[in-house]
């Protein structure tokens, strides 16, 4: 047990918000390096490959940003609920159902002008994701069923429901595989390839598309919602101190439901990236773990959009660079990178406060000494 007591008001913001996460990240990477070494590969080379894979060439970088897009959505989703002290680990299922929303809107309204279809599809994604989060939220608010339990169960329900729909209801009947037909080509969101010509480079293919801008807009939206509006204020009040919220006339139940629905809606937007942007159809299991990784992104980003952006980018690098490594280094499998992610979650989430007191007291003491020296 650590007995270091740090006066929180004296800790500079950059120590707790920059130095501490960076130290945690470094530790996670060092431990990962040990694993790489045990697996019989050179960790330094692996790092080089990650950096090359994610930054070294334009297509790789586009992939990095594509992954970043997904992580921004799921990271923000977790963060919004967390400001109301709700642990929404159902991002995976909400994203899945959000994808259904995108597809149904787009395919049924394809006769409308294209930009309107896009807007309505985004709305559909948000609405479906929100609806999927609403049920656990309602149960939490009125019955006290804990969202951690219900949202994780809803991930399984979403998965089963989608398999059912993809096999029996909306499957592309010309195919045996569980996926839908493709959307009409004019509805596909412009991808990075289309812009790359303008930038003077030519690339074959990239999954990066216009949804990236929607993700950036979502960062602003969440920042505005949480810190600039009455709803955000009330959600945070409920999250910090339910008793005080009741005293101030703020309804905890209402805010639990609002926070969860916005959270689910943001997770649902992942469907826009995957379906309007990349595969243009619903494939079984398309959320592929982004929902869960979003938890790590949010924790690492301290649930603030300004933190979530770099955290999402970091995970984008790991995803993209990781696939480069597994391609080049036969001893390192895809699962190694799941382990690396796990280590990052462990160090920046579960063990977040492991070295925090030491680091903070180190800086507080140093700053005090500087002050004394000046005085």
């Amino acid at each position, binding site marked *: 047990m650590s007995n270091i007591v740090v006066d929180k008001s004296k800790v500079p913001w950059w120590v707790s918000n920059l130095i501490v996460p960076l130290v945690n990240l470094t530790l996670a990477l060092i431990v990962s390096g040990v694993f790489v070494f045990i697996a019989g590969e050179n960790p330094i080379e692996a790092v080089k490959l990650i950096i090359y894979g994610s930054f070294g060439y334009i297509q790789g970088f586009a992939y990095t940003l594509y992954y970043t897009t997904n992580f921004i959505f799921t990271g923000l989703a977790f963060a919004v609920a967390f400001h109301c002290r709700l642990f929404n680990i159902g991002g995976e299922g909400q994203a899945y159902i959000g994808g259904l929303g995108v597809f149904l809107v787009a395919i049924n309204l394809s006769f409308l002008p294209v930009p309107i279809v896009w807007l309505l599809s985004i709305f559909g994604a948000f609405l479906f994701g929100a609806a999927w989060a609403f049920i656990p939220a309602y149960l939490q608010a009125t019955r006290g069923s804990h969202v951690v339990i219900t949202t994780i169960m809803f991930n399984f329900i979403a998965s089963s429901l989608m398999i059912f729909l993809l096999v029996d209801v909306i499957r592309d009947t010309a195919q045996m595989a569980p996926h839908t037909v493709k959307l009409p080509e004019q509805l596909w969101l412009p991808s990075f390839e289309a812009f790359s010509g303008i930038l003077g480079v030519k690339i074959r293919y990239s999954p990066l598309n216009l949804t990236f801008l929607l993700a950036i807009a979502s960062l602003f939206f969440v920042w505005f919602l949480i810190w600039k509006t009455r709803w955000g204020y009330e959600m945070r009040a409920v999250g910090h*101190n339910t008793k005080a919220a009741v005293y101030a006339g703020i309804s905890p139940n209402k805010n639990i439901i609002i926070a969860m629905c916005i959270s689910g809606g943001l997770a649902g937007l992942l469907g826009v990236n995957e379906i309007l942007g990349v595969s243009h159809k619903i494939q079984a299991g398309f959320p592929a773990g982004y929902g869960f990784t979003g938890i790590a992104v949010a924790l690492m980003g301290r649930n603030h959009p300004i933190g979530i952006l770099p955290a999402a980018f970091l995970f984008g690098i790991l995803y993209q660079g990781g696939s480069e490594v597994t391609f080049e280094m036969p001893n390192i499998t895809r699962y190694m990178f799941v382990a690396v992610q796990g280590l990052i979650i462990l160090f920046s989430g579960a063990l977040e406060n492991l070295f925090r007191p030491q680091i903070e007291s180190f800086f507080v003491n140093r700053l005090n000494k500087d002050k004394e020296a000046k005085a």
Partner: protein
Amino acid sequence: MVSPILELTNINKSFGHVHANKDINLTINKGTIHGIIGENGAGKSTLMSIVFGLYQANSGEIKINGKETKLRSPKDSIVNGIGMVHQHFMLVENFTVLENIILGFEGETVFGAKLEKAKADLKKLCETYNFNIDLDATISDLSVGFRQRVEILKSLYRGAEILILDEPTGVLTPQEVDELFKILRSLKEEGKTIVLITHKLIEIMDLTSQVSVMRQGEMVGHTKTEETNKEKLAEMMVGRSVLLRVDKSEAKKGEVVFKVNDLSVKDDLDVIRVKNINLEIRSGEILGIAGVTGNGQTELLEALSGIRKVESGSIELFNKKISDKQNYLNPKMLKEKGLAHVPEDRQRMGLISDFKAYENLIFGYHDQEPFSKSSILKHKEIHEHSYKVMKEYDVRPNSPNLITSNFSGGNQQKIILSRELNENPKVLLVGQPTRGVDIGAIEFIHQRLIDMRDKGAAILLASVELDEVLSLSDRIIVMFDGKIVGEKDNKNVTDRELGLLMAGVTE
């Protein structure tokens, strides 16, 4: 033959600026029941926590059986034969009595022959003191009175010779109190020493042979119980400290604003805390509620402010019913009707300590103009307002962007007051307005409340500070055990009279 088992010399303990215990001397004789009495916040619990090793004194000496002893943790105290039964029981609810008693006890295993031996030992203890407890019962099935017995049994099993009971009767029914007293007397007969912390004079007179009185962190006297009486004790307890009398004119009472009819309210544990209360508050007057904490004031204020459901009876505001068993207006609606509420517990209810000061300054008013418009917070207006009121109420430091928990308790209180008083409410419910606030600020706050009264507000003031109730109120009611046990006009009442009523002594 009287031999001291526990001697405390010059014990001092401070928490930050609060001097909770000042040069305390106390001698407790073996085989007696020793009462420690005092108002809430007098330092009784702190002192006993030092004896039990939960806190370490800043200075002073503790002797057990004449030998100087250092008590660094509860474990040290247990080894030295000190046991403590806390106000809030420390039991694992889904364990049995036996499991709870053995839990964490050094040298015991939970299986086999040792368990059987433990059980046999405990059975013997139960028989000796007439505990009447089923050792295999699960705690969650037991009533509060029985749970308390388990705590006592636990201490005895661990070899306690001195048993400290912190407000043991607060949670008990009268019948359970009788049972407890029987047990305590039989413990005394077996040679155990008992320290009883309480603020109820009846219990002291009933049970103890020695009594020590504490006031504001100091030990103000020790006497033999037979040589004193309730009146003398009440006088010592309340003290004759100088009253901070506030200059105030005669109240100009208007019509009845708040009316409470036959009101009963339950607390979170479903215990009825307010019992069939009737009261009226007129505009332009301050009605003070005197009473020791925990006699229903909190629940009364919460029911009046719309936080807590009403069990029976009704509440009327401006001749309109606002709450009864079926319906109640929530705090937001009441706020719109001109009711403001300064809650007793600022940390847990009045503020969000992780919020910045400016966020707390609009708490509950955040959805009103000029602080927000179309649901968007107007940060410029909020900050201007924050600087203004923080200056007006002398909140230090005057920095709205500082996290609220970094302000001192007194300044946090000023943040709440500035928020609630700033709206010029027509009705004001105030609980403990000056708890933890320095003298200068107290005067300021008192003057504000009087000004509000003179402007025609109806004010209900609940405070454990008798001085405060006396100096501010126009009328005073005394609450004891959820009932109004007395109503006095402030012109002809003495603090001694009130002190007796507060302790439940009715002529």
